[in-house]
Each structure stands twice: as C-alpha cells, then as structure tokens.
C-alpha cells in the first residue's frame, strides 16, 4: 500500500504540556483523510509539524516513501504540501491574484509578469472549479471566497497534498456545500487531502478514512464506511455522546428583551436592520435563524451597545438600554458570547485568567480602591477553568496558546458564569468538538431553566432547531416569522430564510 504521507511516532511538547504523544498518521494517495479529536487534542499541532511550522521532539516524517526533514514551510511547499490555516493569512488590501502569487511571483526580466500571473490563476481556478474574482481586493470578498483564495494559493505552488484545518467552521451552510464539491474535484485531479473538522456529518459525507486522537495520543484509524457518527464520537471522547438535546418544555414568564421598530446601519452607513421587532421572555431560548448578512451582527451589536441604533427602542428587564454603552448594558444584565472570538472575545496577549475576568475585573473583590487583587482573580479563574473544562496548562497561560475550541470555552465560562438575565450567544459552538457542544447546549438550557432569557444566533439550522424553544427568522433586517421549534423543520426554515412566506392558514 502506497502512503503519500507517513508521520510515525510524532512527539511535540510545549511548556507544561505534551501536545502530540507518539502519534502516527498515514495518508493514502488520493484519499480524504479526516483528523478527528477533541478541542486541544493536538490536531493543529500535528499539522503544523507536517507543514514545518513546529519541529517535533521525536518521530519521523515520510513523504511518498522518502524520509524528510520539514524544517520550515518552504520545505513543505517544495514537497508539494500545502496548508489552509483556520485563520487565513491573506493581505487585506491586495487583490486576489496578488495574494495567490505572493512569494512565488512569475517574473519577466526582473519585474512581475502580471499577464502570466493572471493567466496561471485563471487556468488553475478553471481546472478545479474554484471560481474567484481575480481583481477583487481581499477585504471586499466573503469568508468563503477568501478560503478559495487560500486553496488556490496552495495549488499555485504546486501542492498535491492539502491540509485543511477546520475549513468549515467559519463558513455558511451554502459555502460548506461548495467547499465539499471543491474537495471532491481536487481528489479527482489526483490530490490527497487531510481534513480537520469537528462536524461528524462532513466526515461521513466526504472522508475515506479517519484518524482519531485524544489528549495528544493516537487512538486509531478507521474506515469511514465501517463507522457511524456515534462510533466516531465515542472513539474521540472516550464515552458515549448524545446528539439529542434533552430538555423539558419551556416555562416562559415575562419579557426580558423587548425590541421595538429597531433600525441600525452598518459601518458603511447602509441600513441593515429595518424596523425589527422581537421579544424574548424569561425562561425561553429564542433562536435567530437567517442567512449570513441579514442584519444578525448589527442586531447583536445594537443590543450590546457596541453600535448605536438609528431609531427604535431596546428594553432589557424594563430598562431602556437603547443608548447605553457596553459596560452599562452588561450591568443591566446582558451577557454576550461574541461571534468573532479573536476580535471581540479575547485579548490574546492576556492570560487565560485575565480573559476570564475581562467583564468583572473592576468589581469587588477583584479590585479594591483601584488596585487589582490578582490572587483573587486567579482563584476565580481556576474555578471556572475547572468547571467549564478549559484545557490549559494553567490560568497564567497566554490565551493565544490555547487551542481554538478551548479559547471559546474560556469565553463561555466568563459569560455564562455571571448568569445574566439575557444571554446572547452568537455562534457559541463554532469550532467546538461534539462533547463540548453537548456541554454548551446543556449550559444554555440550564440558564433557561433558571429563568434567564437566551438569544441564540446561529447559522447552523441543526443547532437552532435542537436548542431553541421558538425560532425567529431574520430576513433583510426584519423578523419575518416566529415559529415554535417543535412545529417546524429545516425545509420550512430554509424557505423562510430565503424570504418565502409561510403557507396560508398556518399560525405564525
């Protein structure tokens, strides 16, 4: 059997932690090989070793049967290995073409040969069905498009082994469908792919084999055809995982959040929330479903005080918070798990502990007479790290060095622990493993049962359907329908999200 990649007995340590402990990964020519594991299991680390970003302490790497030393990403490039990182590495104000050729520009007598570059890029994007607008600037195109640029970048450098690190975490459902098609095309063209994802459905859909790692150790490799979502999950977590969200009926009480005729403009001054009305009661979870870009972000920003509303009122627990600054909104009883954890959720250069205290550092007993009490802060942080199973060497580790999923858990610990009257959760489970998702969903339901109001904004219909009690469909900045979660399905929601109307006679 011919392996294109063999990573044998790889060990990689970080201060205070063994990220990869004797892991073996063998990838066959022409397959899509899934790499599955909990948050912090060491998947990204293993791939960074393969790509030459980290040097392993032990173990060997063979590419196409030949032992190699991948000392830096250039070596990986020359071996035909390309990587699409979870956080893109593109130059924002360069065009698509410029980004693709960056670092290996075709030259003609010492100057960049733009004509050849444009032709090469067009050829590759035709060959693999990766349509992009070559002249658009990166900052003008969607996340899905940016990802295509990243893929093209690796193909342009002649990669035939591609590593995708959680490519679907930041994509909309439609974009995910397109990406899956792209991966199938790549395989047809003779490429091999290593895919990291937490979504078992995707593994079942496109992968041939799957290697599972748990807490830095290799658990084994299985054929996807012989597995089920449940068996994979069990292998990964080491116990049974329930995908069904268990919850009793909601017992909603008075309104906590009440939004009336809200109008909000985005950064460019375009009106994106247009007369939105929404009530959320204590003791219920309301899911906000919609296609990305229909005003969800601006709605959240207006409620949390990050953006000033043009008109309309926002009421939280009887207080008019429409013109409140973020601190006052927080103190009025609002918690917010932000959509973009690196931009809003964390100060990456702060420690995990400092990040966990980011909303409460100024309160007693953490601050007294303007002076911080670090022992108290870290004591609190330790408690939450334990309770929310944030996998980190300790509370003084920099947030930057946590795995993506554990960064998210730290944010969730911070926001849920305060048990706010209104909890706004925007994509709370993005990038989390199934075990952690189960845990977060439980926490949201717990909050509901404590009599809090929860607003769940998610692009994943599964999640919205499973966790919410009621679902508000947002379309072009308005709530166009509110349905009970147990009286609707994916199909109907899809229709409503596309601007369709509910059939006559059905109650709204």
């Amino acid at each position: 059997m011919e392996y294109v990649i063999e990573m044998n007995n790889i060990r990689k340590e970080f201060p205070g932690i063994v990220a990869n402990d004797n892991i073996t990964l063998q990838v066959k020519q022409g397959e899509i090989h899934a790499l599955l594991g909990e948050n912090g299991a060491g998947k990204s680390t293993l791939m960074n070793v393969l790509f030459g970003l980290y040097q392993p302490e032990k173990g060997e790497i063979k590419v196409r049967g030949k032992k190699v030393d991948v000392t830096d990403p250039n070596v990986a490039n020359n071996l035909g290995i390309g990587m699409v990182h979870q956080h893109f590495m593109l130059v924002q104000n360069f065009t698509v073409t410029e980004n693709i050729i960056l670092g290996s520009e075709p030259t003609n007598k010492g100057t960049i040969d733009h004509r050849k570059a444009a032709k090469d890029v067009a050829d590759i994007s035709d060959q693999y069905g990766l349509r992009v607008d070559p002249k658009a600037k990166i900052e003008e195109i969607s996340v899905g498009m940016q990802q295509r640029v990243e893929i093209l970048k690796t193909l342009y450098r002649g990669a035939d082994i591609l590593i995708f690190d959680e490519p679907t975490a930041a994509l909309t459902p439609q974009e995910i469908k397109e990406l899956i098609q792209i991966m199938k095309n790549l395989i047809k063209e003779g490429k091999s792919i290593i895919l990291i994802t937490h979504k078992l459905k995707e593994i079942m859909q496109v992968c041939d084999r799957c290697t599972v790692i748990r807490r830095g150790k290799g658990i084994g490799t299985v054929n996807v055809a012989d597995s089920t979502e449940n068996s994979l999950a069990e292998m990964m977590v080491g116990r049974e995982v329930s995908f069904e969200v268990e919850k009793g009926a909601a017992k909603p009480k008075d309104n906590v959040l009440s939004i009336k005729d809200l109008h909000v403009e985005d950064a460019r001054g375009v009106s994106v929330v247009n007369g939105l009305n929404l009530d959320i009661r204590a003791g219920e979870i309301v899911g906000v479903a919609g296609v990305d870009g229909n005003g969800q972000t601006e709605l959240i920003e207006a409620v949390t005080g990050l953006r000033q509303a043009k008109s309309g009122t926002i009421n939280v627990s009887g207080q008019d918070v429409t013109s409140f600054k973020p601190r006052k909104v927080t103190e009025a009883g609002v918690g917010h798990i932000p959509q973009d954890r690196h931009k809003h959720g964390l100060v990456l250069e702060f420690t995990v502990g400092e990040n966990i205290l980011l909303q409460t550092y100024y309160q007693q007993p953490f601050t007294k007479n303007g002076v911080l009490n670090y022992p108290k802060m870290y004591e609190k942080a330790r408690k939450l790290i334990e309770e929310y199973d944030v996998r980190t060497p300790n509370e003084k580790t920099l947030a930057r060095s946590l795995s993506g999923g554990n960064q998210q858990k730290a944010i969730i610990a911070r926001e849920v622990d305060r048990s706010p009257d209104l909890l706004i959760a925007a994509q709370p489970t993005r990038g989390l493993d199934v075990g952690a998702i189960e845990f977060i969903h439980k926490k949201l339901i717990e909050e509901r049962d404590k009599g809090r109001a929860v607003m769940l904004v998610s692009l994943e219909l599964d999640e919205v359907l499973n966790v919410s009690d009621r679902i508000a469909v947002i379309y072009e900045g308005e709530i166009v329908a509110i349905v009970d979660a147990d009286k609707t399905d994916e199909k109907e929601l899809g229709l409503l999200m596309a601007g369709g109307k509910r059939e006559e006679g059905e109650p709204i």
Partner: protein
Amino acid sequence: MMNNIFKGKLFGLVVPLIAIGFGFLAGAVIMLISGNNPINGYVALVQGVFGDTYYFGETLQRMTPLIFSGLAVAFAFRTGLLNIGVEGQLIVGWFVSVLVGITIEAPMIIHLPLAILAGALAGALWGFVPGVLKARFQVHEVIVTIMMNYIAMHVVNHFIRNYMLESGQRTAFINDTASLSSDYLSTLTNFSRLHWGFLIAIAACVVMWFILWKTKKGFELRSVGYNKHASSYAGMSVNMNIILSMSVSGAFAGAGGAMVGLGTYNYANILPSFTNLGFDGIAVALLGSSTSIGIFLSAFLFGGLKEGANNMQGQAGVAPELVEIIIALIIFFVASSYLIRWIYSRVQSNKEGK
C-alpha cells in the same frame, strides 16, 4: 537547552543582550578601521564610567531624565500608542518647573513638590492634546506629537527670550527651596551634579510598574493596547484610555524635564536645538522592552556610554561620536530581533540536518 532559551520567556532578555554585544563588536571594528586600538578604547570607556566617583555620579545624573523619557515612551506604547512627543513634553516640563522655581516663594516642603508637579502637569497637557486629537478625530498621534515638539521648543524659547532672560541665554537660577541639588550626593561623588532626582527616577520606575500591572486602570490600558475591539466589548472606554495614556506618558516626560531643570541645571535656557533627552527615551524603552527594570538598565547603559565617551576621547583619542554609532547599532539590532531569531533557527536546523 539553548532551544528553550530562545523560545521561552528568557528570549526577552537574550535579544537585548545579543544586540548590545553586536553593537560593541561593531564599535570595535570601526575603531580598528579608524586606526584606534579597540581594547584601549573600551578600557577608557569603562574607566570613564567607573574609574572615578565623579564619572559615576555624572552617569547617574545623565540617566535620570533618560529613565523618565523611557518610562514615558513605554507607558504610551503599552496602550498601543507611539509617543514621539516625549521631547516636547520634557521641554515644557523643564520650563514650567523652573518658572515655578523662580517665581514662587514657599518653604521647600511645599515649593519643591509643587515645582515638580507643575512640570509633570505641563508635560501631561502636552500629551493630552495629541491624545484628544487621536481619540476624537483619529488624527495619528505620531504626526501630532512631532509637531508638538516644535511648538514646545519655540514657545519655551519665546518666553525665555522675551520675559525671563537673565544672563546670556538662560533664565535666573531657581530658588533653593525648589532645587533638587544635593550637597550630600554631590560630595559623595566628588562634586558631580548628581541630585535627588535620581531617587525620584527609581521611584517613578516602581510607579509605572505598579500602575500598569497592579491597578485596574493599568489592566484597561494594557487591554486597549492589545485589542481595542475586545476592550470596548468588555465595557472599557477606548477613547478615555487613549487620552489617559497620553497624558500620563506626558506627565512622566514632564517630570523628567523637571529633574533636569530643578536638579542638573537649576535654570532653563534658550534651546538652539532639541535636547534629544526625549528622543533617546525611544531607544531606552525599546532596549528595555518597555519594562521598568529594563528601562532602568538601558538608561544606565546609554547614560554610561555618553558619560564614558568623554574619557574615551581624552584617554584613547577615540571620537565621542563613536558612542552614538554604538547606540544606533544596538537599537538596530534590537529592532531586528526577528532577524536574530531567524538566523538562529537557520543555524539550528543546519545542525540538525547534518
């Protein structure tokens, strides 16, 4: 082992040390080329700092304002701001403290603190303006602070020239009650100009460390410096913190100016050009990686280099400008720490490859 040094926390210490080593090495090469014996040169340099208590006292005197300007640059930098206006803030601090020192009659216990405070406040005002412009109108602080430097110098010169000129180019001496000069420290160091300001500078290092790492405000300032978006999400006011940071930074610089005015000279004079004390603060903060201890040590290094340069010329015949070249090279190497890291990883992987 080495591997760990380069990856761990110690890297922060290794880069400045390597940079300093390279700086001196390059200085030796330059001395060789220009026909001097580098060993004699450096012996003279060291003797010019430690060889006589007078030299040593003068070194401490020289490093006093450098500590303040280094702290000023570092404080703003921690909030993500580049305060290039330390020079101007220091000049107004110098002038205003001397003004208070001359015009007010009061017992020392009131007069001296008042004069220092006045200097700090003047510097704070000079930092406040670019802070407000940045917070309110998004005008880049680098441009504004550079312009504020010129305004400071010319405004101060104007006042001295037209209202306060005493003899030649300077004002009258300040009253003794506002002076930091110390007979005790001076006699201790063979009649150097060392004054109480040196102790105040040490205290200022502690103050900056305390504000940044132990107080609520410091937490906010650092948070804003690292990530504005997350800070405003967490309810901090980014604009208020920018204004505050620039003001405190200016206050450090202004206090540094007061040390010069009340301690070293006891007067203010018409400045034909910038003092460079403020600009050197950028180098001090960079080499000291914006930490209190680092700033103290690098202020000592730079102060010592400048003091020792005199003896180097007298004893070994090396032009004192060499010291400026060494300082520039040290800064160059610190700034290219990325380069050092890269060279190191090259060497390392070559070794493993063999």
